[in-house]
């Protein structure tokens, strides 16, 4: 029973990791750079979600009409995705586009610094106190043979799987997706074929940030306490998951995110819970030793432009 209970929790954490990892993975495959600001975009997304949800709740209270909770949540997710994608595009415009021809490591540094600015900016604007996310939907609990499942957990897992499936289809089937795949294949020649590099890059950041916003809101639904440094812990783990999944693989990033969730939940069953990070990262290290390019990544030679 404990096993199945942990399985549910692992699926939930895996959903967060997977959604964030997708953003890392897409940017990494198309622009070949580590978007170290992504964890903080997740944080910003959660805060934007908080703002939108609070505003919506206040609006319905003012207009004296009651929207069902799930509708408010869906609206919150959509509006926040839209708003956060602008944050992502802004980060790309300011931090990465001017550095497109510079060494990739320099772009990674700007990303890191933008992350610090986002955290500090948040601290300055909203202060250091933690903010609790409004609870939009009632928690209802189901007992399935001794395993406690809440509707929130089911929703989180379903939403994240649906979104990564949608992203997979988008990349496989649409013209934009084809342009992205081509760009990931050859960054230098494809723009010469008339594919607009800047627009594709902006789109990539927009999609990644939108997914991060969804992750932030779902995180807020599950653990309704937000703080400005929440992006650091979750973000860096998701980054590792993205690499583990393999360059440019949506399926890989999703699976690796869930795998990380599983490792984190099942290690405390056997070892003391303080060993969680130690064992999680050691397993990742071992996997990378035997599969250097991740689960689904093709071997490639990165030209380090230094």
């Amino acid at each position, binding site marked *: 029973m404990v096993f199945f209970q942990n399985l549910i929790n692992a699926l939930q954490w895996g959903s967060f990791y997977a959604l964030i990892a997708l953003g890392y993975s897409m940017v990494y495959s198309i622009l070949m750079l*580590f978007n170290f600001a992504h964890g903080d975009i997740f944080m910003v997304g959660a805060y934007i979600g908080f703002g939108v949800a609070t505003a919506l709740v206040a609006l319905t209270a003012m207009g004296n009409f009651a929207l069902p909770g799930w509708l408010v949540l869906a609206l919150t997710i959509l509006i926040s995705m839209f708003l956060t994608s602008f944050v992502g595009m802004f980060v790309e415009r300011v931090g990465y586009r001017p550095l497109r021809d510079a060494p990739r490591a320099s772009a990674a540094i*700007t990303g890191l610094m933008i992350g610090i600015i986002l955290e500090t900016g948040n601290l300055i604007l909203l202060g250091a106190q933690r903010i609790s996310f409004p609870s939009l939907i009632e928690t209802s609990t189901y007992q399935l043979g001794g395993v406690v499942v809440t509707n929130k957990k089911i929703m989180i897992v379903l939403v994240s799987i649906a979104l990564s499936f949608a992203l997979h289809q988008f990349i496989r089937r649409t013209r934009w997706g084809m342009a992205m795949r081509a760009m990931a294949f050859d960054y230098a020649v494809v723009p010469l074929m008339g594919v607009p590099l800047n627009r594709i890059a902006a789109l990539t950041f927009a999609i990644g940030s939108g997914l991060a916003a969804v992750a932030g809101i779902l995180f807020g639904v599950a653990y309704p306490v937000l703080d400005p440094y929440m992006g650091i812990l979750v973000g860096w783990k998701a980054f590792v998951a993205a690499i583990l999944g393999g360059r440019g693989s949506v399926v890989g990033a999703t699976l690796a995110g869930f795998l990380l969730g599983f490792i984190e939940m099942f290690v405390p069953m056997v070892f003391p819970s303080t060993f969680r990070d130690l064992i999680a990262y*050691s397993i990742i290290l071992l996997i*990378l030793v035997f599969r250097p390019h991740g689960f689904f990544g093709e071997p490639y030679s990165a030209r380090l432009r230094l």
Partner: protein
Amino acid sequence: MESTGDELSINGKLKSSRVREFVAPIPLLSWLLGALVAVALEHYIGTSFAQTLGLRKAPMLFGFDIMLKQPTLIHSALTYLVLIYFLPIIVVARLSAAGMNGLAAILIDYPLMLTVLIHLGMLYAILHWWSNMSLYRADVLRFTLIAVLLTLSLNLINGYMGEFSCSHPGFMALGAYASSVFTLGLFADDRVFGPALLPQWLGPYLFPVALVLGGVVAAVGALAVAIPSFRTRGDYLAIISLAFMFIVKSLIENLEFVGGPRGLGDQPGWANRPVVFVTVVLGIWIINNFVRSTLGKALNAVRDNEMAADAMTVDTRQTKITAFLFGAFWAGVAGGLYAHALRYINPGSFGIQMLAEGLAMVYFGGLNSVYGSIVGACSISLLGEMLRPLELFKWIIIPLLLILVMIFRPTGLIAFREFDVKKLVRPKQASDR
């Protein structure tokens, strides 16, 4: 620090040719003499002079804290800065230029070591006087010097080798803990490690052993990153080293005998100013020799084109592993110094925050350059201290500054410049540059 800053900006890009004409014939020795006069002036009349200007005491970090806290005192702080630092340095340096050029010309006939020792002696005297003004300055100085060593060892990997390593906080933690266990176990009556095994007076003499031990432990830890990562090229090292950093942090948190997450404290304070100064200078000297040696050139060749380097009989894998372990060793030494300077370490401090600071220092100063590391470490750590009155806004300004540097000089301020001691200390002629 003062003098190095001036020197560098002069070697760099001063647009105005008149200024260049004015400073061109001034050798390093004169700059040092000028700075020495300035700090002596501050030492003897600084406090009383500051009080006549209406300041409570002499400004500690070039007046920044005063200017930011009390804008009404800006003019006094600036006056102080000009009269105590700027004017004496310029005047003394210019006036002594002829004499010092003669001295430098004489010294050039003697072994280089003698000249270098004279310069370093003067530099130490300057730093000694400067930091004797307050305990705060002394601490800032020590941690800045340690930051220089850390930055240089990171530059070795990120700049000279051209890989993106994230594991430096991990190496530093290994060095800090190893050396702390050594000194605490042998020389201190400690709750965990029991009574001292060796007499106290022996301690400071064996402190270098502790530092080397810390470095060696860090290098052995680096082997765990190096062996799997250097089989292929690419972004592999970045991920493995990141995972390694988290593993080290988590491992130390779970080791109860070094205090776990609570950390380890009460290290003997042997990392005082002279020890830190000598260790850091030694580190700079050895690392500079390393990067200018055949091995260092091979390292640059591997970075620029691994296949070509391989064809030219460079053993690429061995070169990379050697350099990586070498960098890790010095990070471990810096960690040992850090532990004995702060006298308290905990695993939480060797995390993402430290990584971000280290990377900021390397990329701000400049890749592939010893000058760059010195400038980067000094400017970021001094800036961090100077902007302290701004509290949170400090963490907006410094990142913004770094982003601007990255956009306009993507490899850092003083990148790809060789640190040639001989060129630095030789006499200057007006026709130079």
